[in-house]
């Protein structure tokens, strides 16, 4: 027992450092001026901390503020739309019997197994025809689709665990389908919907390949794609200070949402939220 505790303290402490230090280090780097970051460490200047990197991001030519705004708009819209559509579909699949039900549900499940990375080319051509490339709306629709199968799955299970009797008595009181969803069922399925929204937000916020493919205009770039421009020195010389400050901004919502809503995140993992 003693030995096990020693192992826990040493192993846990060591692993804590391995996982926490690089993230804290990035935070520290973001308040170092660019010329210190690119130089060999020198004790005299190493701790000259400044907000310059963040100021450059806001005032500089890269217009990262706009990219953050784009990312926020896309991620929030994706979260709301995914949760809404998944809730409606989850209710339909869990409670209603209709002829095409099983086939349609199978369709949604099968689409879970098709990685979007593998259908990117035809998807790009189709979105082009629909005028959804170079459009934040297009990106939202795409991200919503990527997150929907898992969302429908979670919401179907949420509704299935609510007793049918509850709906019957509300129906006797003259409650229609939408009011049923909005008032009687809402408190019971909120945890499921929160899980779906959380995953959709984080997936949209961190997604890279799709945004890189579907967006070509600077002013529409989401944060990860805008950071590629910073990294490539598209705005003059490469500014590592801006790059690390932008990365820190990209991390903040992930850390805050995960730490704050861990309960929902973990329950999503159990339902197969992550595909790789």
């Amino acid at each position, binding site marked *: 027992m003693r030995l096990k505790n020693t192992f826990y303290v040493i192993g846990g402490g060591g692993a804590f450092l391995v996982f926490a230090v690089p993230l804290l280090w990035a935070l520290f780097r973001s308040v170092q001026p660019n010329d210190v970051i690119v130089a060999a460490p020198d004790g005299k200047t190493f701790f000259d901390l400044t907000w310059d990197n963040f100021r450059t991001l806001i005032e500089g030519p890269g217009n990262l503020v706009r990219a953050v705004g784009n990312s926020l708009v896309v991620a929030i819209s994706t979260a709301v739309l995914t949760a809404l559509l998944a809730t409606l579909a989850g209710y339909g699949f869990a409670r209603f*019997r209709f002829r095409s039900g099983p086939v349609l549900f199978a369709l949604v499940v099968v689409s879970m197994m098709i990685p979007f990375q593998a*259908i990117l080319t*035809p998807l790009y051509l189709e979105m082009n025809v629909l005028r959804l490339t170079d459009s934040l709306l297009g990106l939202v629709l795409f991200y919503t689709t990527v997150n929907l199968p898992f969302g429908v799955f979670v919401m179907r299970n949420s509704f299935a665990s609510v007793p049918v009797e509850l709906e019957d008595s509300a129906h006797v009181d003259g409650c229609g389908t939408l009011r049923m969803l909005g008032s009687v069922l809402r408190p019971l399925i909120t945890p499921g919907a929160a899980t779906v929204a959380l995953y959709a937000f984080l997936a949209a916020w961190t997604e890279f390949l799709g945004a890189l493919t579907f967006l070509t205009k600077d002013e529409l770039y989401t944060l990860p794609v805008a950071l590629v421009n910073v990294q490539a020195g598209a705005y003059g010389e490469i500014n590592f200070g801006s790059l690390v400050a932008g990365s820190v901004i990209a991390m903040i919502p992930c850390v805050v949402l995960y730490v704050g809503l861990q309960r929902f995140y973990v329950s999503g993992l159990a339902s197969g939220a992550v595909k790789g």
Partner: protein
Amino acid sequence: MSTAVRGARRRDSGSRRAASAGRRVGQGSLTHPSRTGLLLVSPAVLFVGVFVLVPLVFALVISLTNWPLIGTVKFSGLKNYTAIVSDAAFAKSVLYTLLYTVIVTGPILVLGYALAVLVRRKRRGSTVLRTVFFLPFVVGLSTLSFVTVLEAQPDSGLINIVLRDLGITDGTTAWLVDGPLATGLICVLVVWAVSGLTMMLLMAGMQAIPREYYESAELDGAGWWKQEREITIPILRRTIAMAVIISVIGSLLAFSQFYILTRGGPGTDTTTVVQYIYNRAFVQLQLGAATALSIVLVIVVGLVTAAQFRLLREKD
């Protein structure tokens, strides 16, 4: 089989399903009319249809043509597929992706398992540890890759400074312009970033194993490793396979960390399959060829999933 019999069957299975759901909610249900059901699911089904199934079918069509961005589309039969066989650059990207997958899968599982063992029981600090171990995964590989870019710089990056101070290198290594070095760096980054996911998946399984199993094993004098080998691993075989499948699929589809850190270079030395297809489609604009490669990728990822599930079932 006659339609009447089939119809009766369907009704039968329908009512059985409804009965198992608690009570009858069949087609004639007043509270749950079937048309409302169809209406409720149709937006989601429409999305999946338009953005997953249409592209998939479209892919089959495109892959049989030359499909230029400008100009007339020419049917080319199976030419795009037969060309894959002699496409040395594609073969290189496939081999590279497989190599990468082979390198990272083991360490991700071992590290993820070790972390899960560390935090599976409720102890002082275990919740904090769990959160911290999982944070890199939540932050995501693309953001972590951007940070790695500056820490991999010669003379100034943290990686080089630490290695120099440990006396291992002289601190001038240019990690990102050398194939093997960049591969090594990316593998370390990925193992660090995603083993938290394996930890979470395994931990959930471990917590479901009754404690008595371990207590009686301890009475029999079984040590820690013996308990893991004879209790945890056999019980968790499915969960472990699941975690491995998820990590293998992620590796086969790897893109952002390579794109950000090396752009697939130097030359095409670190070009993964997804990046190769991306280049063919969006840099060289050979959409027909790229789509044929995509279909190969869909099939390969599908087969890996199926093969691993099969392996899992056979062992039972």
